[in-house]
């Protein structure tokens, strides 16, 4: 779970002598020294010698060869949407909003060509680059480097602006599985720490799961949030390796807690009970693998400098993007046995990490565990087991023998027959509650919001009484905003034995808070981010056209006739003509968005 920390500034770290005992700062210096000299440093706290010379030499465990890939899946289906609504529906599952160009391209070239174009779009401006561009790296007496809010500004800019929105939509979904929260980053340059994490997600969103897993494991924000940063081997005074990451990387990031069939359903034992994937002993053992890591302040031009207004020097922002450094002297040399994998104590730490991450990557649960949750984020809360299995199969083999190819996984999720079948009145359970933050971003892109000075000063919108009730990269804990298996009590969803994770955010307060918040935002925007309604303004006098356009753009024509009638009637009341002043037209357009954005037909994406 998340960590809140008031740690000593890193400068104390730099000043501390390397033999000063157990402070993580000293460890950092030791790590830097070890990296620079690749020497066997002095044993750091009187534990067993780092050379292992006191015990007979046990051979290191070699990195096992990769297992054969899974069976070859059928090739992805191409689909050419027949209607605007079908095209919009596809695009709104893949990304936040839909443009007329998306619809044209989907209808002419089909979904696979459209997806390929998205996958081939270059990575846009990174979060770190944006923070740099706004001067947030300044180390001045204003102490901007202590503020978290620029991290919120960064993520809102990333989500609301820029053309590469599918990559960002996917990265946001990944941020809800591999959770890190800005709220838990209490350190210098928190905005850069969270941006360094976000940039790993966007950089790897169309890459490979294994590479993503390793990049996250060594990421500065993950290291802080799940406390691998500074975790050290056991010592003679009873200190134990930190178990936080070892538990959550298994439980939340890869294999989950119960054994799964290839279709994601639990494997049951003779008594019809689910079987555990892991025990506390697995956690205790794996924790040893993640010892010896700490933030790397000095690679890639990183530096620290003393400033007169702080007791300790302030580091540059590089550490937030640098993978954590490894200090073999702090790494456990105790043998590891987890999930049937043995790693001897003499195995080099870097190899041990590869072996451990491979064990999780190749675990039979990882494909269905990941597939099911990603389907839930993008398409529907209750995918059929067959749907999960089809996607998991692609996770196991992209068709060319590669496991964990994320592009192939997104394609499988979005082109699956279950995702593509147009909703009918008969299936009253398909779909999902749109997340508040996804609604807000969709509205922002559709309303063509802009920040005049490019500051994007939208803060943390987590407050449910008065705000959105959810904010990107602001999960309250590593368990995300909601549980994958959440069932809203006292509902037909529960009676039907179904799940609806996003409903964990919906209650009597948050529904009213959201409605009030959106009423204000659709007209006035928020902070320096204002809606322009550029496309709609010239046709604002044509109510039918406005309603038609927004129904398509916001819901893929999923509004009921009753809602359409209510919206249309309310808009006609504004009596907008071509010559009406712009502010009145904007009032009407804001109301049009507001009424749609609060309707249950919109809130449930089908």
């Amino acid at each position: 779970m998340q960590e809140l920390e008031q740690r000593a500034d890193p400068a104390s770290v730099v000043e501390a002598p390397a033999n000063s005992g157990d402070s993580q700062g000293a460890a950092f210096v030791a790590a830097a020294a070890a990296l620079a000299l690749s020497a066997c440093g002095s044993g750091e706290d009187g534990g067993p010698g780092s050379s292992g010379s006191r015990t007979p030499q046990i051979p290191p465990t070699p990195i096992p060869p990769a297992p054969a890939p899974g069976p070859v899946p059928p090739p992805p289906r191409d689909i050419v949407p027949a209607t605007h609504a079908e095209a919009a529906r596809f695009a709104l599952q893949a990304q936040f909003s839909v443009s007329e160009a998306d619809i044209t391209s989907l209808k002419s070239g089909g979904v696979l060509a459209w997806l390929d174009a998205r996958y081939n779009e270059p990575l846009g401006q990174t979060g770190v680059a944006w923070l740099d561009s706004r001067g947030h790296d300044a180390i001045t007496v204003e102490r901007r480097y202590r503020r978290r809010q620029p991290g919120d500004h960064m993520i809102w800019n990333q989500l609301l602006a820029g053309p590469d929105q599918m990559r960002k939509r996917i990265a946001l979904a990944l941020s809800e599985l591999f959770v890190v929260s800005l709220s838990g980053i209490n350190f210098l340059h928190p905005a850069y720490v969270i941006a360094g994490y976000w940039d790993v997600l966007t950089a790897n969103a169309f890459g490979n799961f294994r590479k993503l897993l390793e990049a996250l494991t060594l990421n500065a924000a993950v290291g802080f949030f799940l406390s691998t940063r500074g975790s050290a081997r056991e010592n003679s005074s009873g200190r134990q390796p930190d178990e936080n990451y070892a538990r959550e990387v298994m439980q939340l990031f890869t294999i989950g807690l119960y054994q799964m069939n290839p279709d994601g359903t639990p494997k049951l034992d003779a008594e019809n009970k689910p079987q555990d994937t892991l025990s506390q002993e697995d956690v205790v053992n794996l924790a040893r693998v993640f010892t010896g890591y700490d933030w790397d302040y000095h690679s890639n031009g990183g530096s620290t400098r003393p400033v007169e207004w702080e007791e300790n020097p302030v580091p540059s922002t590089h550490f937030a993007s640098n993978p954590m450094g490894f200090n073999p002297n702090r790494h456990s040399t105790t043998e590891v046995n987890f999930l049937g994998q043995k790693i001897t104590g003499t195995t080099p730490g870097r190899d041990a990490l590869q072996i451990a991450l491979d064990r999780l990557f190749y675990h039979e649960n990882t494909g269905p565990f990941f597939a099911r949750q990603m389907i839930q984020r993008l398409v529907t809360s209750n995918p059929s087991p067959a749907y999960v299995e089809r996607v998991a199969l692609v996770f196991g083999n992209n068709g060319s023998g590669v496991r964990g190819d994320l592009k192939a996984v997104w394609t499988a999720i979005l082109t699956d027959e279950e995702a593509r079948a147009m909703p009918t009145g008969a299936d009253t359970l398909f779909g999902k509650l749109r997340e508040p933050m996804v609604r807000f971003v969709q509205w922002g892109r559709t309303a063509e919001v802009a920040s005049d000075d490019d500051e994007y000063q939208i803060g943390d919108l987590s407050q449910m009484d008065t705000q959105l009730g959810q904010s990107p990269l602001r999960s309250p804990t590593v368990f995300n905003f909601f549980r994958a298996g959440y069932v809203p009590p006292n509902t037909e969803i529960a009676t039907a034995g179904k799940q609806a994770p996003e409903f964990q955010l919906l209650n009597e307060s948050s529904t009213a808070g959201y409605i009030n918040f959106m009423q204000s935002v659709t007209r006035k925007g928020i902070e320096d981010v204002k809606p322009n309604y550029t496309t709609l303004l010239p046709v604002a006098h044509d109510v039918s056209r406005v309603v038609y356009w927004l129904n398509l753009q916001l819901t893929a024509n999923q509004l009921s006739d009753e809602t359409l009638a209510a919206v249309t009637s309310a808009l006609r009341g504004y009596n907008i003509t071509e010559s009406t002043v712009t502010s009145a037209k904007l009032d009407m357009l804001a109301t049009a968005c507001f009424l749609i954005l609060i309707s249950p037909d919109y809130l449930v994406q089908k």
Partner: protein
Amino acid sequence: MKRIVNKDELWTRRVVLQRAMHLSALGVATPLAINLAAVGEAAAFDASDYKALVCVFMIGGNDYANTLVPYDPANYALYHQIRAGGPGEEQAGIALARADLVATALTPGDSAVLTDNLQYALAPQLSGLKARFDANRLAILLNVGPLIQPTTLAQYESANRAANPLPPRLFSHNDQQSLWQTDGDEKSTHGWGGRLGDLALSSGPSNSLLTCISASGNAVFVAGQDAIPYQVGQNGAIRIKALDGPLRGAVRNIITRNSSHVLENACAAVTRRSIELEGRVNNALRGVTLTTEFPRSNLLANQLRVVARMIGANATFGVKRQVFFVSFSDFDHHKSLMGQHPVLMKQLNDALGAFYSATVELGVADKVTTFTASDFGRSLASNADGTDHGWGSHHFVLGAAVNGGRFYGTAPHVSTSTDDQVGQGRLLPTISLDQFGATLAEWFGCTPSEVPGILPNIGNFSNTNLGFLKPG
């Protein structure tokens, strides 16, 4: 042996009530009172008095050993050895300084002798709770946690799980949070607070929407079958402003209309409840004057303040039994225990202190019982500057109905090797969640035969009322 309980058969009152209603619908005159009297055990909930339970959930797993700290020299030395890596009495590693514990050292009123002659001190920030302990308003339960049945270390380590069942997925946050709130597994959709609400609802005229209340988001603890959890905002119910403006007709139509789609309908149902209750709740809250000062910038106090006001507003609602849920987070101190845990202890102390004072002001101090819960306790052993996930933990019960000023249960040895822990000082509970909950439930009005419907493992334990609450 594990008892298999068919909950439905245990809903005696509810079943009777439903049958009575069916009969009434058929035109057969069956006065409610007669049917309830026929059950024979319904007296408690039918009483005209008011009672409330308030669950204070510490999200993340509270560190038991820096909350209730070994204080006598011999046991403090063991604590310091384990948490600081050597002898001494100064603050070191993750050990608190012994001198800082002088003011909160506890002398129980019953002069009972604890394991190894342990004397405990509360965390230095818990000075207000120490005063409540001295005034016999606070009881401390030692080593509480979920258990299926009484379990020894040998049974815990046994390969025979069928004979020695354990709670599912120990040491995992979400599973153990769920277990504490539901006494069932992570998929449970009803909590034991909600089940208490159901029972109260079945016993007489009440309100299915104002019986189980959370001030802390959607919490399964307060979800019942009939008792629908209501979320109250920190300043009362949230009014939808557009319902007062020119768009009110369109807005009401759009947000409340029934739909044939199950998810859409579930959305609209929440909004309908929000609208239906907002006026009633806020009108009632306006009538409550509460002069007790609650601390500012304290998320727990903000929630307990609105709970106190809702209890005050009950003069208007007229509900006889209420179950509340509040929570605060960031207890998962794998790191920075010494920096962060005292901050949370201070918030807990100040918020509970203000809340208890508010119940005194409202004249319901003996009608409101507040108890703490958490995912789990943590390890006694250190991982450098924090602790890892554990199992049993110590908990507080506060109120004028509490037989306070003393400890309940068996104090664990200060050890990472004794048989009352499962390694690294992760405590093997000696009081089960079911026993803890059953004692609260009986005070609330449950009869002993109804408790298994609330806490399904209680039948596996011989002592079903721990005595920390005064009857009546």
